C-alpha cells in the first residue's frame, strides 16, 4: 500500500481549518501539503510541532503526527523529538509572537545547534488569537490595541538573526505567492540542518497595514536578482531590506554538519531504538568507580 504514490489529500486531515477566510496561513498549509506530496514522505515518519497561536493550529490539519505544545516552545519540543528519533522528519511551526517573542531564545539557540529540522514561522506582525496586540515583528509606530500611540520598539529581524546565529537554510516566503512558497518549503524540507522559512502571512482581521496589496507592491524574488545564496555578506545586506523593497526566496544556504551528526550519543542510531536489556550491567560496571 505504501508503494502507491500519495496524493495531496492523503496528507490532509478531516478537520476544517479554523482560520479567518483569507488568512495567509492557508497558503502555508497548502505549501506544506504540496511539499510533502512532492517528496512522497510517509506520513508516519513526519512530526509537525507547534506552539500556541492561530497559526499553531496547523498541526491539526496535517495528516502526520502532531505535537501542539506550549506557547513559544515548539522549537525545543521539535529538537527533543530529533534527539529521541532522528529518523523522523520534524517540522516546527508557529507564529511570530510564538517564535520571535516568547520563544526567541529557543529560536536562536536551536539555530546555533544546526539541528536538522524545518521551522516555518507564519509572520503576520500582530497577535491574532489574542485579538490584535503588537507583536515582536510589528513595525515601529504600528497602532494596535496594546500600543494605541504606536509601537515604540524596533521589530525583530528573523532573517538577520538566522544569518548570524548559524542556521544553514534561511528563506522567506509570501502567502500571496503560494507556488513560490511551496517551492521554498520543499527545499527547506530536503535541506540537511536547521532551515528557517519565515512567511509573510497577512492577518486579514488585525493587521490592516501589512496586507496582501502592501506586500505585492514591495516583494521581489531573490532568484530573479541572481542573489548568491552561498554568500553570507550579501545575504545580511538583503536581510535588512524592508519598507520599500522586500526580498523573498532563499537568502542563504550552507552544507554543514548537524548536531545529530556530531553528538556521540546518536552514533548508534536513534535513541528510541537502543536496546534496554543491558542497562543493569552497564551500571554494575560503572559502580566499580565508586570503590
Amino acid at each position, binding site marked *: 500500500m505504501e508503494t502507491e504514490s500519495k496524493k495531496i489529500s492523503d496528507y490532509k486531515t478531516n478537520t476544517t481549518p479554523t482560520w479567518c477566510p483569507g488568512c495567509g496561513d492557508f497558503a502555508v498549509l497548502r505549501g506544506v501539503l504540496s511539499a510533502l506530496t512532492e517528496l512522497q514522505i510517509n506520513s508516519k515518519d513526519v512530526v509537525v510541532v507547534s506552539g500556541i497561536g492561530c497559526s499553531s493550529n496547523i498541526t491539526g490539519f496535517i495528516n502526520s503526527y502532531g505535537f501542539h505544545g506550549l506557547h513559544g*516552545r515548539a522549537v525545543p519540543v521539535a*529538537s527533543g523529538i530529533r534527539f529521541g528519533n532522528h529518523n523522523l522528519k520534524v517540522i516546527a511551526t508557529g507564529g511570530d509572537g510564538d517564535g520571535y517573542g516568547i520563544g526567541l531564545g529557543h529560536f536562536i539557540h536551536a539555530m546555533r545547534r544546526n539541528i536538522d529540522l524545518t521551522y516555518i514561522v507564519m509572520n503576520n506582525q500582530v497577535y491574532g488569537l489574542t485579538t490584535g496586540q503588537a507583536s515582536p515583528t510589528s513595525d515601529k509606530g504600528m497602532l494596535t490595541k496594546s500600543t494605541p500611540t504606536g509601537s515604540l520598539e524596533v521589530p525583530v529581524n528573523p532573517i538577520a538573526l538566522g544569518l548570524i546565529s548559524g542556521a544553514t537554510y534561511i528563506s522567506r516566503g509570501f502567502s500571496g505567492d503560494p507556488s513560490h512558497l511551496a517551492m521554498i518549503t520543499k527545499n527547506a524540507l530536503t535541506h540537511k540542518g536547521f532551515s528557517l522559512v519565515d512567511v509573510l502571512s497577512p492577518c486579514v482581521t488585525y493587521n490592516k497595514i501589512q496586507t496582501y496589496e502592501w506586500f505585492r507592491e514591495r516583494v521581489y524574488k531573490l532568484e530573479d536578482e541572481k542573489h548568491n545564496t552561498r554568500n553570507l555578506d550579501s545575504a545580511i545586506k538583503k536581510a535588512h531590506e524592508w519598507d520599500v523593497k522586500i526580498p523573498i526566496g532563499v537568502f542563504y544556504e550552507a552544507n554543514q554538519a548537524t548536531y545529530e551528526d556530531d553528538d556521540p550519543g546518536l552514533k548508534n542510531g536513534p535513541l528510541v531504538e537502543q536496546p534496554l536489556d543491558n542497562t543493569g550491567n552497564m551500571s554494575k560496571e560503572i559502580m566499580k568507580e565508586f570503590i
Partner: protein
Amino acid sequence: MSKTEVVLRVAGAAGDGIASSGEAFAKICSRSGLHLLAYNSYQSVIRGGFIWLQIRASHEKVFTHGNKVDFLIALNQREFERNCVDIVPGGAILYNSDKIKPNKDKINENIILCPLPVGQIIKDIGRNPILQNTVALGALIKLLDLDFENMANVIRDYFGKKKQTAMEVNLQVSKAGYDYADKNLPQFDFKLETDLDNKRPVLTGNQALSLGSISAGCKFYAAYPMTPASSILHWLSAHSIQTGMVVKQAEDEISVINMAIGASFAGARSMVGTSGGGFSLMTEAIGLAGQTETPLVIINSMRGGPSTGLPTKTEQADLFQAIGASQGDFPKVIIAPSTVEDCYYSTIEAFNLADKYQLPVILLSDLFLSEHMESVDSFNFDAIIDRGEIVTHKPSDNAYRRYKFTPTGVSPRAFPGTSGTIFQATSDEHDDFGNVISDVFTDPEMRTKIMDKRMKKMDFVKKDLPIPKLYGTDDAKLTLVSWGSTFNVIRESMHFFSQENLPINHLHIKYLAPFQSGIQKILETSNDTLIIEGNFTGQLSKLITMETGFKINHTLFKYDGEPFYTEEIIDKVRDII
C-alpha cells in the same frame, strides 16, 4: 576503651583542596571495609569563603556525619580558630605549624595540638602549598593506626598514570607525614575495625540518582546548570559515551523540559534535573507532560529558598511547589528519596511509574541528600524496566485512539513512526483520538470524560506503591513524622531512643503524591505526634491535614540551611515526653 568510630573535619578556604582530601580519606575508609557518611558545608564561592568537609567512619553503618569532631585538619588560621570549638575533649587538631600559630588561651586544654612543620617535613620533596593536605592525611593515617599501603593505593588511583610526577610526590609526602606522626606525635586510642578485603562503594545522592537513571534505561538527560543538581549533568556527561545517553545542556530550564518531553514523545526515556529556581521555569511544561500523557522524570534537588535563597545550603521547602506545579488538575507522582541508596532505587521506580502511567514523576531530593557521600552495600543491578503498554502494530480497526478510554485510564502509547498510529498530542483539551476540543469545538461531555480518564490513573498508581512503613515499636508514646533526607538522622536518633528505652516510633513518608491512605490509620492510632521538616511552614504537616484531617501536635522545623543534627531531635523529643 578504644574508640571504634572517628569523625574528621577538614576546614579551610575554597580552593584549598578540601574536597579531594576528603574524598581520599573517604576512599581510604571505605576500602578498609568501613561505613561512612560525609557532608560538605560550603559557599557559592570558587576561591576564598570558608568551607569544611566532615566525615564520620565506623565498622557499623553511620547515618549522620556526626556533631563533634575527633580530628580537625585546619588549613588556615581563621578556620583553626573557628572550628576548634567543635572538637571533643581528647580530640586533636592537625595543622601546618609554619603558617598557623595557635592562641593557646582560646583552646580547651583537653584538646591535643598536633603541629606539622610542613616545610621541614617535605623539604626534600616539593613546595606546592596544597601538599600540606597530604602531609596531614599521612599523619592522620598513622594516628588512626590505618594501613599505609591502602592509602598509597588511593593516591595512585587518584592521580593515575597520566600524572605520574604528581603521584610520586604525593606518595612521598604522605609517607613523610606518616613517619613524622610516628616519631613526633602522641598516640591516640582508636581501634577502627577494618577489613581490607571488604571494599565498599561510596557515592553521593546525585551519583546514585544518575546511576539509577542508567539502570532504568534513560537515554536523554537535559539540564541547565544549577546547584545542587549540576553534578548530575557533569556525571552523566562524563559517562555519556559509555552509556549512549544524550546529555544536553540547554539555554534555560524551559527549553530543557520541553526538549525532554519531545524526546520522550519520540519514545526515549527522558529525565531533567534542576533546583527550585529552574523547577519554577519548568512548571508550565510539567502540565504539558500531564496533559499530553508524556512520561517524564523531573529531579528537583531543593536548596534554601525563596528566590536565589541559599544556593549552597539545604532545605525541604519545595513540597508545595511540586504539588502545585502547573495550572489545572492532572495526574502527577511525587517521590522523595531518603538515602543515597534510596536515590538509586527511587529513580528506577520513577521511570517505571512514568512510563506505566504516562505522567510526570517528580523526584524531590535536597542539597544534603544530593551532595553528601555515603557508603553503601552494592545495589541490585537486575533492574526491571517496565515501559508500560506500547502499540507496535497497526490497530485492526485502523483507528488508533491515542487517549482511548480504558478501565485504568492508561491508553496504550505509540511512538511516532509506528504504522497506523498517527495522532495529535495537544496541550489543548482533546478527545480520545487527540483531536482538539478546546475552543471552537468545545465539548463539555468529552471534557469531563477525558479528565476523568487522566485522573483515574492516580488510583492505580496508589495501588502500585508499597504500604507506608512504621519504624520502631507499635506501642509508642510519640510518633515522629518525616520525609526525604531526614530519614537517616532520625534513624540514628531512633537508635538512641531504643537504647534509652524510650517508646518512640517513626513514620517516614516517601510518596507525597498520590497520598497514601495507610498514613491516616497510622497517625490516628498514635498517642502523640512530632513532625520534623527542613522548612518554615511545615509543608508536610499541612499536606497531612489537608489529605486526612489529622493535625500533628508537635513541630520541629529548621531553615538555617544546615541539615538536622541528632542532638536537636533528641532534645525536642525529651522536651515532649
